[in-house]
């Protein structure tokens, strides 16, 4: 294993102020330098991605008066994948008077992340959570309301309070439209210049500072450079490394991976979340998996038949021959255990041969009790669009027959390493939202992703980036700078190489094979032998890709095959690092379950004496890739390190 990576110097987050945790964010804000309003228009920021993080950041920095240039690969910023988030957004408002507080949200998130996140970051997240709801309501986000006109809340996995705000099953869509509309307002005001159908293909680093990006116009193929005083990546997660995931088809790791290759450390790549409530795979041509919001677990009961091979219609299986296994094993949290726990439990009952549906890879999510208790009308009100979606995909009516669900890759907690200011290890490069690693540790709690993306974009980044921008003025940079020229040439060379291979296999066939290697060996359960095998398989497949992929057409046109080829090429390098990270972390924590490291009753067993750190990887060259591990030690002063228990 030692030949797979080397270990470098430890890394420290130097931006977090000392002192009581509830004063740190205020101290940092007071310590941050400001830019006066007249000077802001002389400073420029590039933002890549227009989801909740990138959209809210672009709108807010535009309002502040900076010159913002924003890029997205979609044909409109409104289509970023945040739009598909269903369930809700957490905030410690305590509107339900059920004992919620900033401290409790902080505590739940640190515990839910299985003690692999930073206390300071998580506390700040909980602190600003309430302001996010205020902001979104002011924008006209139509959150669910009580009859008295007050905001409604519901409960989500891994917590015992109701702190989740929601807009039917389309919370992500409504929050994103709020950010998108704020962004378009700034486009109209001239503070934000928007480039749609543009993909970032490289980062331009000048004298150690991030100063620009190389982008490809996806309509014409033109490769161009853009420069600014700081660069913000808000390009989302890398779940599509698995090919089948709940992410949109074009979600990719290229922006962050290219920054990683330019020197930004990539943290905890093996922490990827598998969501327990997705519609099971039905065919080999399946292109993506569809999530059914976790909020369904509030009212649905999860079960499988007690007997192996019981293939009766679920409605004919009597109560005493059903195993409501989450309620049985975890009586305190029942169907609302965290995602990693629920996913592994589903796999375990399927491994026993008690899985349901044509493939045997599924469990029931049953609403019969809830419909009897509240009436079908109430269930329609709460989950109508999710039930409709299920029916369209499967052809089955979930009001009459229990849904079938199975875990699927959904979210990535890993991402570029950032300090408390959300700045990467390259000066002037900021990373926000799912693209960074910062707040969720080894497992993200439901409804915390939207909260983190908007916390970063509306409140955290605007405060911290001003401290960096105030250190200007910055030397002007243009196309003639060698760093810009080198980056552009490298992008063009890579495109030309991909087009020239003219092999026998399609891009998708490589992507599917990579995805199945990662799912089998770096998915729900990981073993030493499996990971070692996976690394060898990914390397061999990557070698074949660069020799045998077929990319039709040319660069100077809209060429979707070429776009995908570039993304898959980066997924190979990332996939290898995910496996190396998973192999080196010889413990189980949160989403990362090493079969060798478990408690007597089969739960994830952490090893805090050896692994209470963030694994931040430095790029170690493409051939052979021998990354360098930098450890950031994690300290817990407020939440007691203990074995997570949801029983």
């Amino acid at each position, binding site marked *: 294993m030692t030949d797979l990576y080397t270990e470098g110097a430890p890394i420290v987050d130097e931006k977090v102020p000392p002192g009581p945790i509830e004063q740190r964010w205020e101290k940092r804000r007071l310590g941050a330098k400001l830019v006066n309003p007249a000077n802001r228009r002389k400073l420029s920021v590039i933002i890549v991605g227009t989801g909740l993080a990138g959209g809210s950041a672009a709108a807010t920095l535009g309002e502040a008066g900076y010159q913002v240039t924003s890029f997205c690969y979609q044909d409109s910023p409104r289509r970023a994948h945040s739009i598909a988030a269903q369930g809700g957004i957490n905030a410690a408002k305590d509107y339900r008077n059920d004992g919620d507080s900033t401290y409790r949200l902080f505590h739940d998130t640190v515990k839910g992340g299985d003690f692999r996140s930073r206390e300071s970051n998580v506390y700040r997240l909980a602190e600003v959570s309430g302001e996010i709801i205020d902001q979104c309501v002011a924008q006209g986000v139509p*959150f669910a309301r009580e009859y008295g006109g007050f905001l409604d809340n519901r409960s989500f996995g891994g917590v015992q309070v109701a702190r989740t705000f929601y807009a039917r099953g389309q919370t992500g869509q409504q929050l994103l*439209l709020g950010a998108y*509309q704020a962004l378009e307002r700034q486009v109209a005001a001239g503070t934000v210049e928007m480039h749609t159908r543009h993909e970032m293909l490289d980062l331009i680093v000048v004298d150690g500072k991030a100063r620009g990006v190389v982008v490809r116009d996806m309509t014409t193929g033109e490769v161009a450079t853009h420069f600014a005083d700081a660069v913000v990546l808000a390009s989302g997660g890398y779940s599509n490394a698995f090919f089948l995931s709940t992410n949109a088809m074009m979600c990719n790791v290229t922006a962050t991976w290219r920054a990683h290759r330019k020197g930004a450390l990539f943290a905890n790549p093996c922490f990827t979340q598998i969501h327990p409530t997705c519609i099971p795979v039905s065919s080999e041509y399946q292109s993506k998996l569809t999530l059914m919001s976790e909020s369904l677990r509030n009212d649905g009961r999860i079960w499988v038949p007690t007997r192996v091979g019981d293939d009766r219609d679920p409605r004919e299986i009597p109560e005493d021959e059903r195993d409501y296994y989450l309620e049985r094993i975890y009586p305190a949290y029942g169907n609302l255990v965290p995602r990693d726990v629920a996913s592994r439990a589903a796999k375990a009952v399927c491994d026993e041969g008690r899985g349901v549906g044509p493939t045997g890879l599924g469990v029931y999510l049953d609403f019969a009790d809830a419909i009897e208790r509240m009436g079908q009308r109430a269930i329609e009100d709460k989950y109508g669009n999710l039930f409709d979606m299920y029916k*369209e995909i499967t052809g089955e009516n979930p009001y009459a027959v229990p849904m079938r669900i199975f875990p699927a890759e959904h979210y990535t907690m890993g991402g570029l390493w950032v300090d408390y200011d959300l700045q990467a290890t390259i000066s002037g490069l900021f990373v926000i939202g799912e693209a960074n690693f910062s707040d969720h540790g080894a497992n993200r709690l439901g409804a915390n992703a939207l909260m983190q993306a908007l916390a970063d974009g509306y409140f955290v980044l605007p405060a911290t980036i001003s401290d960096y921008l105030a250190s200007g003025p910055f030397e002007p940079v243009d196309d003639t700078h060698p760093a810009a020229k080198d980056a552009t040439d490298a992008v063009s060379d890579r495109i030309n190489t991909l087009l020239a291979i003219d092999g026998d296999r399609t891009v998708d066939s490589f992507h599917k094979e990579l995805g199945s290697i990662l799912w089998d060996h770096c998915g729900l359960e990981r073993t030493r032998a499996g990971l070692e095998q996976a690394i060898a398989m990914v390397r061999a497949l990557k070698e074949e890709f660069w020799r045998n992929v077929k990319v039709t057409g040319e660069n100077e046109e809209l060429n979707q095959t070429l776009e995908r080829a570039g993304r898959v090429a980066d997924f190979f390098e990332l996939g290898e690092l995910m496996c190396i990270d998973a192999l080196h972390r010889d413990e189980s924590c949160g989403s990362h379950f090493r079969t060798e490291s478990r408690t007597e009753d089969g739960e994830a067993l952490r090893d805090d004496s050896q692994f209470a750190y963030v694994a931040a990887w430095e790029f170690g060259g493409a051939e052979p890739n021998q990354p360098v591990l930098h450890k950031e030690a994690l300290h817990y002063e407020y939440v007691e390190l203990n074995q997570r228990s949801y029983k």
Partner: protein
Amino acid sequence: MNITLRVWRQKNSQDKGRMVTYGVDDVSPDLSFLEMLDLLNERLTLAGDDPIAFDHDCREGICGACSLVIDGIAHGPEAAIATCQLHLRSFSDGDVIDVEPWRAQPFPVIRDLIVNREALDRIIQAGGFVSAPTGAAPEANTVLVPKNQADLAFDAAACIGCGACVAACPNGSAMLFTGAKIAHLGRLPQGQPERDSRALAMIAAHDDEGFGACTQIGECTAVCPKGIPLDVISRFDRDVLSALIRGEN
């Protein structure tokens, strides 16, 4: 099942374009329509042909990227879904299916089945927002919103901005799209201060982009994947009229 597709192929915005016939044999009725196109594209690629370009992303009916006219109907024969949610079980073995891009003057074809829909973003830029700078918001429960108002606002806000309403309208009107935003924000207390200016700015932007007028045909709401009701347009008209009257006073 075996399907014959007649697909609009157009190399770029200058190309004239034409329908091309492809056979797709031996596909499962459980495939989605777009997965069938994926499969066809895999076969075309291996044969050295250019795959068919089409917009798509989330494949769960919420991002609004997919945009195919299937047998003359925007988003295909099933009601209240986007193209990506359509499955082959809605068709029969041996069917011949026409696949075309959105057709409207403000949506020029970029390639094959992909059109440029930036005109819709420009309508939003004109006034489809509440001017609420970050940090200025009062505590969220300060302003109460009756549940039925919030629900009606949500119904209009559910628009995914796909543009099917425009593609279906004989006039090429985007009044359902624009009216949905007017209704969403106009139903909420937060949207009141800019209600008049929003209506006037958005109707002007709509017309400037070259979208046609609404003559209450209703094709738009029939193809809308989110079932946005036609009355958002009447509401829009009323807001425009009220704003004009108030403006004169």
